[in-house]
């Protein structure tokens, strides 16, 4: 149906031309889902946009064509192209908040689209269609929803609106550019279900661009792997996962942290894509472990290795004979440590609010809206405690409270047995002991400061070393986070995202802290980079014995790193205990939902829920925090009474009204084989 031929696109940059897509060719059959995967900068989005006939203003089409049923979109006159976009090809953007106009009601935007393409004749019909479509994509109460503005919807709902608009004209092809990247795992899983559902209903072909192989395993028929603007491998999804022929594909697969805990120390990708330093031959050569000397100057072309499987690597024969077993190395997770270390940080019934606590509000009887409610847990010396939950669950708030940026309303935070004072009253030594690493390394490093200065500032502040000592220590710490000492003279914008996060980590480590608060430090990074940072963190803990509070929305990441894990929902812990136990029944219903949502390419048979829509009840303020979304809701008791903590024999705690024995059985309803497989994989 769609045929991309020899597509080559250059970007004009200040320092010359950059080839974003290099001789990319592939075809897409009707109602087929093709996944396009690669790290940032691999050119996958450029290709996706070319499918819409769009070439960015700074880009130049060198050659090639995109044929939609024989018609070259790239040479179509603007008027005809505009008629095709939206009508014949739908587009779902990465960031739905940016894809929707903020000052138009979502219904209005939909109406505009369908009227534009003449799908319906009148405004009324269009509005009816909008409601139908919104219902189709599983949006709740479409009658009211059409009148809402984008900011009144959640991220997942916004993305559903975008999808509804993209499929409104029943296009033949849907181009999805990282549609779930900004979303929570649970939301992501529901969006994938929706896309599968839409595809089976309307026979829409899809080009799904993502950096997450796990997602593609669930939805894609075929997967194309891109590196440095070139398609290096294309194969059926199952074949790619079981028998990838390109070293880069293998590296990508190994980089995916899976809940099973098998691949963390496998042969992952090393280094990063540097577009400025590509060799004449294979672009992947500098990072390849399988290379021969001749790879450096012999360009690699896609070669058919078996039916429907093409690889651009001269060594594919040798690589294909290596079983994936060599890629899988150590099954042992990092988190096997001695139990019960002495507590370093203790939180007791801590509640936190962002509300200003003024006399005026108290007089009016305003109640504080608590972001975190009655939280109790502790972090031992040298222990890594993971906190998992979706956005808005209060994970970061806890880190902020520990760092002193926020003071708890109630409760007690102790550090080494002593109450933790407000930030202003903390001694330099106490500040040194508690270091914070932020989510986004772009924002946490001063853009006008060289790496060396960034690292020596805490050094000078805490240890007052002389120049030589400071230099030496900076060099040493850079090595500890696996960066070249020459990086010391660089500015942050000369580093990649992963390297920046390493510098941020180094800046925390250089203070020799007792505990590091890691606030979603992986979520801004590529998968391959994430894997290497996880390993770095595990190594650092082994060597320095530093404790960590590791906050993440990704269960798989926590699985590899944390000794103990807490699951947070709307500011309350619902489950806490040793990390291994978290992945074994009994599950808290919310943990179960989280586990089911984790995309892992090994478990293709993830059970999809009967309906893609959100089953929501109005959240109540008294009962169980999760009651409104619980699949195992038990009636009034859940809505009205705070559930008790139930402890398993292994010391694991679950906060639920349903007795443990039943929880263990409940999962059979939900996840019979998956649960069994999970348990098997872990044991």
């Amino acid at each position, binding site marked *: 149906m769609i045929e991309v031929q020899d597509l080559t696109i250059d970007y004009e940059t*200040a*320092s010359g031309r950059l080839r974003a897509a290099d001789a990319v060719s592939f075809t897409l059959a009707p109602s087929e889902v093709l996944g396009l995967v690669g790290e940032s900068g691999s050119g996958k989005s450029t290709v996706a946009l070319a499918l819409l006939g769009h070439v960015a203003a700074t880009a130049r089409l060198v050659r090639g064509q995109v044929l939609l049923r024989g018609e070259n979109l790239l040479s179509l006159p603007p008027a005809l192209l505009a008629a095709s976009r939206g009508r014949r090809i739908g587009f779902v953007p990465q960031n739905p908040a940016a894809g929707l106009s903020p000052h138009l009601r979502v219904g209005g935007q939909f109406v505009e689209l369908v009227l534009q393409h003449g799908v319906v004749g009148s405004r009324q019909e269009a509005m009816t269609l909008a409601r139908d479509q919104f219902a189709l994509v599983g949006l709740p109460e479409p009658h009211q929803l059409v009148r809402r503005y984008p900011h009144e919807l959640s991220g997942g709902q916004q993305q559903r609106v975008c999808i509804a608009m993209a499929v409104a004209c029943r296009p033949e092809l849907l181009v999805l550019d990282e549609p779930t990247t900004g979303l929570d795992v649970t939301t992501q899983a529901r969006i994938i279900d929706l896309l599968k559902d839409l595809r089976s209903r309307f026979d829409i072909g899809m080009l799904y661009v993502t950096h997450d192989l796990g997602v593609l395993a669930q939805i894609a028929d075929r997967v194309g792997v891109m590196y440095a603007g070139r398609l290096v491998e294309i194969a059926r999804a199952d074949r790619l996962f079981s028998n990838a022929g390109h070293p880069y594909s293998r590296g990508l697969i190994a980089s995916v942290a899976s809940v099973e805990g098998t691949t963390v120390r496998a042969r992952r990708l090393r280094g990063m894509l540097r577009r*400025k330093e590509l060799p004449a031959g294979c672009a992947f050569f500098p990072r390849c472990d399988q290379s021969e000397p001749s790879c450096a100057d012999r360009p690699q072309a896609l070669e058919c290795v078996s039916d429907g499987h093409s690889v651009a690597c001269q060594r594919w024969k040798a690589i294909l004979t290596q079983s994936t077993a060599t890629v899988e190395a150590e099954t042992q997770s990092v988190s096997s440590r001695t139990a019960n270390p002495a507590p370093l940080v203790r939180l007791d019934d801590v509640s936190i609010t962002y509300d200003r606590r003024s006399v005026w509000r108290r007089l009016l009887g305003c109640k504080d809206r608590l972001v975190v409610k009655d939280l109790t847990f502790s972090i031992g010396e040298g222990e890594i405690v993971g906190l998992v939950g979706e956005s808005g669950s209060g994970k970061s708030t806890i880190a902020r409270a520990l*760092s*002193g*940026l926020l003071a708890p309303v109630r409760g007690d935070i102790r550090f080494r047995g002593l109450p933790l004072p407000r*930030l202003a009253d*903390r001694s*330099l030594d106490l*500040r*040194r002991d508690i270091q*914070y690493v*932020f989510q*986004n390394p772009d*924002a*946490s*490093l*001063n*853009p*006008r*400061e060289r790496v060396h*200065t960034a690292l020596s*500032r*805490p050094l000078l*502040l805490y240890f007052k070393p002389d120049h030589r000592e400071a230099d030496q220590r900076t060099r040493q710490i850079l090595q500890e986070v696996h960066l070249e000492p*020459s990086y010391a*003279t*660089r*500015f942050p*914008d*000369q580093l990649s995202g992963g390297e920046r996060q390493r510098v941020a980590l180094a*800046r925390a480590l250089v*203070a020799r802290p007792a505990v590091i608060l890691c606030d979603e430090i992986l979520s801004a990074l590529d998968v391959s980079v994430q894997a290497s940072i996880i390993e770095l963190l595990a190594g650092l803990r082994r060597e320095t014995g530093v404790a960590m509070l590791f906050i993440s929305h990704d269960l798989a990441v926590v699985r590899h790193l944390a000794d103990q894990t807490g699951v947070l929902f709307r500011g309350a812990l619902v489950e806490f205990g040793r990390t291994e136990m978290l992945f074994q029944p009994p599950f808290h219903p919310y943990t179960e939902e989280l586990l089911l949502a984790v995309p892992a390419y090994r478990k293709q048979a993830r059970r999809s829920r009967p309906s893609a829509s959100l089953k929501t009840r109005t959240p109540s303020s008294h009962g169980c925090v999760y009651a409104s979304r619980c699949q195992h809701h038990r009636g009034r008791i859940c809505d009205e009474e705070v559930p008790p903590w139930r402890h398993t024999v292994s010391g694991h705690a679950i906060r639920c009204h349903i007795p443990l024995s039943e929880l263990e059985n409940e999962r059979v309803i939900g996840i019979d084989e998956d649960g069994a497989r999970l348990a098997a994989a872990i044991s």
Partner: protein
Amino acid sequence: MTAWTTTSATSRSRRLWESAPASFKVGVAMLIGHILLASVGPFVAPFGSAEIGTGIPLSGMSLAHPMGVDQIGRDVFSRVLYGAHIVIVLSLAGTALGLVIGSLVGLLSAYVGGLFDEIAQRVIEAFVSIPYLVLGLLAVYAAGPGLAGQPALMVIVIAIVYAPRIARMARAAALDIVTRDFVTAARLRGDGAWSIIRRDLAPNAASTLLVEFALRTGYAPALIGAFGFLGFGVQPPTPEWGLMISENRNLILVSPVTVLGPGLTLASLVVAVNLTAEGLARILGRSADFSVR
């Protein structure tokens, strides 16, 4: 990259210069021209700065008097040459002093926030609400008659007039910066206010502040001239350009070149400072090693 670390400092600054925006190079060249003019001008000027009877008053442009002759027979070109250093020193020094004071107050105000910020802002607003000239005159008056007409006083007056306005600009720029994570990190770490202002806020606000500096440097000569015109600034017959423009502006129709001469010279100085500062701001907006980007 490795080559970069091993290259010597001279070739590094050479690379820096080569990769700088063209407007910056033009600006720097013009500025160097002005500084040369200011330093050698008095020695090469054909006439003295206060020498009268050099030609027929208001006789217009000629080879002997490229900028004409003013109403009492002084050669305008010579006076422009003599006055160059006064303008450059007074306006640059005054604006620079204003920039230092203004940025410090503005950045501190944004960083500390709360009540301090409120009070500082109200005081600044009070200053800004007083017109330039009135504020300047108040300062001159406060200094007393003994100091009137002293160049040092002029520098201080310009600084007083400019500092509150620059402070507001600096605060606006810093308000965005203080919310960023690297400032939070420094705060958590225990860095003091001064350290944070010096290392985090000032470098990141620099590009905004430099543009502000360039613009204000351009207005300063006019301000100096206005004070001179009112009899409180540099006194005639000092060959200050602003003063010369205001002295001769009544006769602009009779002999345009006597006004345009110093006017255009002043304009070229303003353009030079602007281009330089803008170029500098653009350079600061990137990392110092352009080859990597």
